[in-house]
């Protein structure tokens, strides 16, 4: 058995070596694939905070991914057309600056996660799954029927947003930005899991009554986890929109919610690096199988079915054994 710590190091090394090699070998497409994997991993690290730590099976995280994406799309749209986002109650200008857009995305998706979380956490179990799925669909239909920002056609951003001191149009530099954010998110998730908050949350997942007995509100703990989780996924959405320079209602689709969950599961629920492993495997499969069969989702479906039915603990669980996992 390989120690989980060593496997995590190996995953980080893979995430650095492949893009650097691709940069030297002049293979920008590989760098783009790795950027995609890093962004998906970030979204899944976000979901894993709700799912792995809080036990909240949210099937609506595409809502936050999409909100982050549209926060970027709308800001950049107004900046490139030189129109204000809003004139009332005070003037809001569009922006093409990445750090500003990230802040907006995090704020917007955290706000939405608070509302969705407060409503969804009135219930639990299978109700929670259905309600998050339904709210996700609500954002999807809203984005389709709202004509101002492209409706069904989506919104194109012609030039990638800027980051002070970097050329974001260079694939390797944009990858490094995404990778740095992913590492920061992993560090935050790891700190969170070991913090008093994380420990209390862990307890709230396993024995809510006991947590209540010692004077903590389990639902409040879960709500905070849900908001952090949604905000992180929203940030991933903003980066994803920047990667494609395009946002569309597809970012809100329920399939995407399912896929973000698949990243977490293939890698291993509650494992710090599970989402990274899952996203890497997903993007690799998407590229390899998508190249040789138009119907690659069948293969993905079968693989997923096998992992769920027979491979408890996901890839990391299979390689490292069960010790150290959350359940």
């Amino acid at each position: 058995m390989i120690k989980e710590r060593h496997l995590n190091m190996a995953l980080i090394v893979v995430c650095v070596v492949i893009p650097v090699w691709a940069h030297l070998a002049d293979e920008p497409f590989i760098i783009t694939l790795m950027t995609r994997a890093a962004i998906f991993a970030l979204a899944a690290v976000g979901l894993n905070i709700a799912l792995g730590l809080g036990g909240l099976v949210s099937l609506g995280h595409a809502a936050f991914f999409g909100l982050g994406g549209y926060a970027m799309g709308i800001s950049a749209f107004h900046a490139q057309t030189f129109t204000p986002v809003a004139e009332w109650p005070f003037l809001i200008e569009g922006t093409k600056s990445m750090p500003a857009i990230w802040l907006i995305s995090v704020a917007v998706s955290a706000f939405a996660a608070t509302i969705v979380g407060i409503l969804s956490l009135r219930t639990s179990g299978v109700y929670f799954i259905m309600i998050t799925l339904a709210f996700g669909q609500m954002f999807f239909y809203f984005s389709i029927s709202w004509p101002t920002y492209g409706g069904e056609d989506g919104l194109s951003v012609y030039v990638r947003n800027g980051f002070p001191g970097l050329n974001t149009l260079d694939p390797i530099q944009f990858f490094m930005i995404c990778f740095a954010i992913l590492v920061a998110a992993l560090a935050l998730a790891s700190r969170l899991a070991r913090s008093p908050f994380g420990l209390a949350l862990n307890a709230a997942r396993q024995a809510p009554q006991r947590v209540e007995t010692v004077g903590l509100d389990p639902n409040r703990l879960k709500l905070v986890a849900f908001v952090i989780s949604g905000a992180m996924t929203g940030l991933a959405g903003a980066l994803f929109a920047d990667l494609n320079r395009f946002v569309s209602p597809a970012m809100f689709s329920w399939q995407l919610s399912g896929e973000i969950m698949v990243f977490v599961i293939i890698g291993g629920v509650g494992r710090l690096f599970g989402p990274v492993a899952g996203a890497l495997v997903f993007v690799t499969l998407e590229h390899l199988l998508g190249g040789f069969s138009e119907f690659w989702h069948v293969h993905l479906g079968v693989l997923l079915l096998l992992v769920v039915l027979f491979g408890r603990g996901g890839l990391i669980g299979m390689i490292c054994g069960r010790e150290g996992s959350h359940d």
Partner: protein
Amino acid sequence: MSFALIAEQILNGVQFGIMLFLMAAGLTLIFGVMGLINLAHGSLFMVGAFAAAAVAGATGSFLLALLAALTAAAIAGALVELVVIRRLYGKDHLDQVLATFALILIFSEGTRWLFGSFPLYLSIPSYLSGPISLPGGIEYSLYRTALIAAGLVIALGLGLMITRTRIGVQVRAGENDREMIAALGIDISKLYTLIFALGAALAGLAGALVGAIQSVQVGMGEPVLILAFVVIVIGGIGSIKGALIGSILVGLTDTLGSVFLPQALRLVMDASSATAVGSSIASMAIYILMGVVLIWRPTGLFGARF
């Protein structure tokens, strides 16, 4: 706005609701008895629609098409239960969500592989096309009237089956105490397969019936599935009555909202922005309804109280 138009929209809403009921009833039964959340229920809806379109294309008979939809969906449901679902009963909801999500991927791509990406068409039979005159001078589509009638008959039949028959007794017993019913000598796994196939057949029938008024295509099941989830959240899990009332509420809210909200907003703003704002809000109306029910009664209108 005329009375006839309002009546027509109300009937449209009821018809939509009745079709949702056929989906929601199966889901809520399967959840109530087996404790399983089945995302692949939308795929069975799609299987029914495709089977109907294929058979109608080959034979030209609408009744045969409906029969094919029922059979194909029931067989697909029974097979899926025997091969995959059966292994999920003891597992947690997360595993059920993922396994049934995997089934959606397999069903959708499998159907695309068999039938191609282009939508199929299923036409309304001649004896059900055209309008019908309803009391009060309302002209309404005969086919949609038939849908409402068929749905009500099925709802009544389901209700009688649950309350009056031996199977119904077993279903209710299964909801309350799984071990006890097995101890009384009832083959619980056969009962589970039967209920799953019944739910699948209802979904397949809904797919075929709806397939005649919209196009039959891959991915048609999931939006309906998610609406059926909204219905169940509103009606309460495990309750057929809740599913019926929830479905009609959702059907009416969605249909009437998208027709009347833009018109109502036209009273306070100009026409084009009223259409835009109205349709955006209308697209969220049923989710707002769900939110209100959640605040008021977290376990749904007819759900078990905790």
